[in-house]
Every structure is written in C-alpha cells, then in structure tokens.
C-alpha cells in the first residue's frame, strides 16, 4: 500500500436548491491511476472543481488533505502551485497561437515585460517530446488534429510541474487509435511516478488503465474498487454506476423485416470546401433499406460526418458528384430544406454547436426544423407547438420539469433526446444519426438505442455513424467501414468483431 497523496474527506457542496456533493470521500495513492466514473450529473466534475479551487475554500464543507497538509485553495493557481493540474474536457487552447505560446499562456517564460521566446520554444519542445509529439512547438494549434491538441494540453500540464494530473474526459473527442496512444502515455507517466485521476465514460479505458476505480452516484461516492485485488469487468462498474445490473447494453430488436431500399448513394465524391484538391469523401457507394440500421464506423477524420452532411442538402463540401436516390428516384438536394422535404434527417454529432439553440426552450427547439407543422401563414400556433413538444417529451422520456425549460439547462442525454425529437417531428423516412450517444451516460445511451429500435420498427431507415465499436456492432444490421474518405469494407453485424473491423482499416491503410 502506497502513501496517500490526496484525501478528500466528507466533501459536501450545495448549490442553491441542490446538493451536488453529499459527504464524498476520495483517497488517491501516490503513483496510481485513479478512475472516477459515474453517470452524467453524478458530481464528478463538481468534485474535481472543488479540488482544483474553482469552487474556493469556504464554498464547500469538508477537508482536502494533499501531501499531508490541509489545503484551502482560493483559486486554480493555488492548486497548480502545489502540482495539482486539471485538464478539462473542452480543450482550452487558442487556435491562432503556436503550441509553444499556448503551453506557457499565463505562465510565460522570461520577464513580464519581455517574453523570452527562445526559452519558451526550447522548453516547449522538451515537453512535447515527453508526450511523444514530434511537431515543432512553433506550429499553430489550428494546424494539428484534435488528438495532438489533447497531447499539447498534457504537455502544458507537465510544464506546470504537475504531480497530480486530473484528466476530465480526455478521450471524448479522440478516435480509437489516438485514445489508445493517450492511455499508453498515461501508463508511461505512471511508471515515472506521476499520480493521475481520470474521469471518463468509456469503461474499456477504465479497465485498461485504472489501478482503482471510485464510483460516484447522485453526489455520493458509492464504492472504490481495487483493480489489482480482483478482476473488474465493465458490467461490474456499470452496476455500481446505475445501481442495478444492466443485463444487455444493447436492446434486442426482433421481428423487424428489412424492406425496400430507401436511400442509395452511388459514386459519391466530395471535395474539401477550402482546399479544393483534397478529396474528403472518395467514391462512396452505400444503401439503406426500410427497417434497417446501417452503421458507419470510421476513425475521427475518416470523412463520415462530411459524407452525411454532403448528402443532407449539400451542407458540407464543394464539387459534390455522384447520384442520390431516395425510394428509387434520383434527387438533387441543394439545401437542408430540400433534404427535409425529401424526408431526410441529419442528427448532428455536435448537438451544442450544430444542433440545438441552447438559449431557447425545448418547445421551440422541437419545432424548429418543421415550423410548417405548427404554423399557418407564418403565424405560430403556440398551443399546438406545446402539445407537440409534450408529446415527444413523453415519447422519448426526456427528463425535464417542463417543455418551457431552456435546452441549455438539460443534461447531455436529455439534450440528445430533444435533438432527436426535433428531427422525428420532421417526419423523416431516413435518419442519419451522427454519434448519437457521444458524451452521454450509460442509462441514457440505452434509452437512445431503444428509440432507434422503435424508429426502424416503424419502417424508417437509420444510418448510424459511430466511433464506438461495441455500439456499431451491437446496434447495426450491416456495417460500412470508412477510412480516409473511402468505404473500405462492408459486413453484416453477425460477422463483425472488433478485430476484423480494425483489421479492415489497417489493411486499407497499408494498401496506399
């Protein structure tokens, strides 16, 4: 048993009207990777905000004992001085600045009146090497991918002389390869004696890296599991998180006949809107039948979202060629409105950025893509709109006190349901769901899967884009595998395994 580096004792934090944390206890040993898991809103992020001083001492009850002394952090810099560094889920990098500039932002090398750029960049390069990045620190952030940006964040934390590194959902925007690389890097750091806390929804990652797992549920710590004394399975963790056993993570779909082909895409090629010579989607052929769930699996940057958006009324890309047939008829969809009229729906992967108007209530968001359905001659029938919103709220089991609640106040899973409601209300025959369960917790995921099943049961077609292999395999009837803009494989769900899908991608990469 190692030395206890951090102990959080009886932490209670209340917001007006809500007890966000209730008597939470957490012990982290020196040199371990400690995973913090729990459903959305369970209180994980609040706990880490208490630890890092975002919620200052005095705004919570309980004690933080770090390195043997009681700490009273007033602000983030206090905790950073002690070596506690938190890396937030949303990357905090300035795209227009270089890696080096970002790394020492607020912590500049040299004097206040004169930044020492040589020292900045040489130091930055040193830390970049430590996280395994070969880029020069003079490269701009916007010119490197998300995976590398995440590594820059870690390098930035190292530059602050971190002893306890907290990673909040570090892999939520990374693909499988980048995620794996990041986890391996964590294991590498562990060997060097670094202590880490990781917050994540991806249980396979937890099992892969964690020494100990603390489960948080409804603002309290439920249990701490030691991964070395017994083998911990994902199901075991889920049981702790939801307080019950989820026997099947993917609801069964039975008795759904796959009917005629609803949508067919042939020789679809899309070029990048800015770099005219770059093919983003390269000669893709696909189809989806009525009552069928077709999965598109691919790593981030494979061109999946670009494919979907270019089909959906050319909302992405330039120089789009190929034919699109809906119910056997060739159509040209010039904008999203025409796509919606052709009974096509695209449910975006980026629900906050591209999907919802967060400052508007559920009612307004539900009707936005189909205003004609609740209005006459440009005048809105608010009563009808309200009824529609309530109907979908009940149907999709959205948890909210009322449909007048602003969408920005909902949890990720409930936001996703509102987004689905909005598109279901346009009465589509074909729904393209782009990462429909990203960043939402296990319970809500299951409910989204049930909604997908209901959709195909009523004869609709679903194209599901996902970068989570178990989900693609568990939910699809048929799977397309996409890599670098091309479809490199197609297989039936019953033939698909994680191994042969990854093999498909690796082989296509080698062929180039």
């Amino acid at each position, binding site marked *: 048993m190692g030395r206890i580096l951090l102990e959080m004792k009886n932490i209670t934090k209340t917001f*007006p*009207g809500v007890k966000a944390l209730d008597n939470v206890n957490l012990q982290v040993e020196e040199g371990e990777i400690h995973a913090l898991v729990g459903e959305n809103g369970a209180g994980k992020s609040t706990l880490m905000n208490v630890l890092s001083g975002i919620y200052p001492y005095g705004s919570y009850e309980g004690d933080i004992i770090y390195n043997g002394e009681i700490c009273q952090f007033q602000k983030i810099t206090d905790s950073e001085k002690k070596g506690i560094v938190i890396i937030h889920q949303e990357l905090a990098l300035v795209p227009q600045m270089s890696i080096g500039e970002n790394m020492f932002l607020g912590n500049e090398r040299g004097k206040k009146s004169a930044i020492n750029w040589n020292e900045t960049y040489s130091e930055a390069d040193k830390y970049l090497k430590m996280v395994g990045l070969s880029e020069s620190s003079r490269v701009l952030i916007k010119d490197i991918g998300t995976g590398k940006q995440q590594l820059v964040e870690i390098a930035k934390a190292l530059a602050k002389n971190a002893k306890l590194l907290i990673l909040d959902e570090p892999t939520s925007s990374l693909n499988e390869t980048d995620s794996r690389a990041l986890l391996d890097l964590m294991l590498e750091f562990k060997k060097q004696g670094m202590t880490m806390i990781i917050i994540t929804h991806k249980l396979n990652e937890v099992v892969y890296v964690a020494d100990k797992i603390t489960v948080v549920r409804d603002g309290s710590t439920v249990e701490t599991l030691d991964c070395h004394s017994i083998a911990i399975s994902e199901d075991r963790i889920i049981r702790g998180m939801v307080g019950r056993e989820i026997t099947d993570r993917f609801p069964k779909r039975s008795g759904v006949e796959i009917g005629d082909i609803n949508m067919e895409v042939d020789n679809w090629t899309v070029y990048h809107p800015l770099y005219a010579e770059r093919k983003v989607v390269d000669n893709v052929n696909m189809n989806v039948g009525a009552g069928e769930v077709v999965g598109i699996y691919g790593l981030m940057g494979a061109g999946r979202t670009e494919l979907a958006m270019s089909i*959906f*009324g050319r*909302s992405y890309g330039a120089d789009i060629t190929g034919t699109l047939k809906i119910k056997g008829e060739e159509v040209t969809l010039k*904008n*999203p*409105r025409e*796509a*919606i*009229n052709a009974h096509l729906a*695209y449910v*975006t992967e980026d629900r906050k*950025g*591209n*999907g*919802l*108007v*967060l*400052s*508007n209530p559920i009612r*307004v968001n539900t009707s*936005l*893509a189909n*205003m004609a359905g609740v*209005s006459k001659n*440009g*005048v*809105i029938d*608010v*009563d009808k709109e*309200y009824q529609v919103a309530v109907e979908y709220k009940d149907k999709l089991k959205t948890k909210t006190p*009322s449909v*007048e609640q602003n969408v920005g106040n909902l949890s990720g899973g409930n936001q996703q349901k509102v987004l689905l409601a*909005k598109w279901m209300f346009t009465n589509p025959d074909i729904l393209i769901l782009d990462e429909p369960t990203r960043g939402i917790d296990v319970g809500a995921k299951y409910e989204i899967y049930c909604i997908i099943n209901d959709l195909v049961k009523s004869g609709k077609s679903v194209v599901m884009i996902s970068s989570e292999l178990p989900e693609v395999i568990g939910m699809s009837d048929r799977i397309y595998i996409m890599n670098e803009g091309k479809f490199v494989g197609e297989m039936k769900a019953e033939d698909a395994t994680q191994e042969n899908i990854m093999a498909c991608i690796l082989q296509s990469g080698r062929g180039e």
Partner: protein
Amino acid sequence: MSIKIQDILKKYTMVFALIAVVIFFYVTTSGKILLPQNINNLISQNAYVFVLAAGMLLCILTGGNIDLAVGSVVCFVGGIGAVVMDKNINVWIAVAIMLIGGLLVGAWQGFWIAYVKVPPFIATLAGMYAFRGLANVVMQGLTIGIDNTTFLNVFGGGADCYIPDFLKMEGVDLNITCMLAGIIVVALFALFVIKNRLDAKSKGFDIAPLYQDIIKLVAVGASVLWIFYKLAKYKGIPAGLIWIAVVLLAYGYITSKTTIGRYLYAVGGNEKATRLSGIDSRKVFFFAYINMGLMAGLGGILTIARASGAQPTFGQGYEMDAIAACFIGGASAYGGEGGIFGVIIGAVLMGVINQGMSIMGISANYQKVVKGIVVLVAIIFDVLSNKKKK
C-alpha cells in the same frame, strides 16, 4: 416562495429601476416630471426612439448585430420627404416615397450583410457615412421647412397633433375621448389576459398562479389609466402615441407569434443549427435589415414632423438611442434574447432620465455622461445575473 420573489425581481429588474428613477426625479424636480405636459412631451419627443428601437431589436436578436446607419438614414429619408413636400406633391405620395426610401436603404445594407457576409458593424458604418452625405446632397446643406398641416397633425408635429376630443363636455377640464380610450385599452388588455388564462386552463396547460396575473393586470391597468388621465388633462392623445402603439403592437406580434420572429431568435441563438434545420439564415438577416430600413423611414417621418422641417444634422446619435434602449431593456448583446416589452422599458427609462435631468437644469454634457453610465450599469447587471444563472 422566497426563490420565486427573487425570480420576479430578476425578471422585472428594469421595471423596478424605472420606478426608482421616476421617484428620484419626482423628488428632485418637486413633482414637475409628472406634470401632464411633461408626460405628453416624454411620449412625443421620444416617439422616434420607440420606433427605431423596435427595428433595432430585430437586428440585435440575430446575434447582437447593430445598425449604425440609422441616424443617417433618418436624416436622408427625412430630407427626401421635406424636398418632395416642398414641391407641393401630395402628402401621402411623399410619405410613401419616404417609407420606400427607407426600405431600399434597408435592402441595400441587408444585401451586403446577408448575402455577401460583410460584418454588420462595417456595412452599417459605411452606410452611416454615405447616407449622411447623401442627406446633405438632397437638402443641398440647407434647412427645409414643412408647412403641410395634414402631415404635421398626423405624424405628431405642430400645435394640433392630438386626437380631437369628439366627446367634449362643457365645463369639464378633461379630454373625454382620451380618457375613454384609456379605459378601452385597459379593458381590452384585461380581456386578453382572461382569455389566455381560460384558454390555457381549458387545454390543461400549466398556468401561472392567479395572483401573478392579477398583479400584472392591476399594475399595467393602473399605469395605463394614469398616463391617459395625465394626457387627458393636457391636450389629449398625441399622434406620436398612436404610431408608437401601432409599431410596438406589430413588433410584439412578429417577435412572439410568427415564424419569422422565431427564426430571428433561432439565428441569434445558434446560426449553424438553424441553417441545418432547413432555414435560410441569409433571408433572416435580410429581413432584419430591410425591416430596420422601414423603421428608419418611419423614424424619419416622425422626426421631420416633430421639427416641422428637415436639417442635414438631424438624426445624429439616434442609432445609439435605439441600441441603448434595446440593451437597457434586456436584449442580449450576443443575440437570441430580448423582447418588445424590454424595448418599451428601455426607451421610457432613457426618456425619463433625459427629461428629468433637463428639468433639473443639468447641462447636456453631463446628461450624456449619465446616459452612458446607465447603459453600462444595465449591461453589467445583465452580465452578472447571467453569470449567477450558470
């Protein structure tokens, strides 16, 4: 319960601020600010603020976009109107020309903003210079008087721009038509509130507690009756009030009940999401600015009527008055939030402060300082209360 009172305070902060400001000036001007004549002037002098702020609100809703050219357009359109009327052309044709002129200006700016994606700040800055120049060209740098009494009476200028008292009673020092109009307005409002309530009840919707509706009814009813009483003690309903009412009712309806109103909020809240929902955001921007042009046209009409003439310096700073009224009234500087009710409160607050300080004899220079501080405080309040929400 205590939380609810806090919410109400937060929602109606500016109303309470307005009441506080009125009380302040009531004390410092020893009651002069509430004399019938001053109430009347408050409305007539600020008619243009209400009209322009209603147009400006739509632009701000689309994402905090403002129109800096409004003051110049008011002057330009007003100049055209004065020149046309000077040539003895029919007054209604002149009015039509001014409104169409405003529309065209709006279309010009809207085109660059919506379809070419010129940032609104820049496009309207250009307009601010260009239309000021054109106004000078139209008027050849001169002041042009207007003596058409029909025009002046209808649009709130001259001595007789009041609704005549059809029901005049001998020996009663009160404009009966005005008082009756006030009662009718309150009655209609009460009917509207009751109907909404019954409607909601019959359909099983959530309804606000009864006492809230009653408080609302009493507060609005009392203040409307009081204002009409004051006006009745003076010369009756000023023509400017009719135009304010028409514009505010129309825009209240557009922003809350129509699809285009909904799109304005949606584009301001999240343009990408709105576009992917099949709504052409370019049309929404174009609508906002062409509409601003129309309101600038009406603002120009009211301005030259009030002054019985047009001058090349008219309208200076009007854009700022309109913008300030919107922001004081709680419109978000980032778009997507705000409403006509807020615009009314914002415009009245600005008007009261202006007039109160004038009566107190504070110099125009310090008045500007105070106005600046009021705008800043209003925004600080908005920012802070939003922060707490999070």
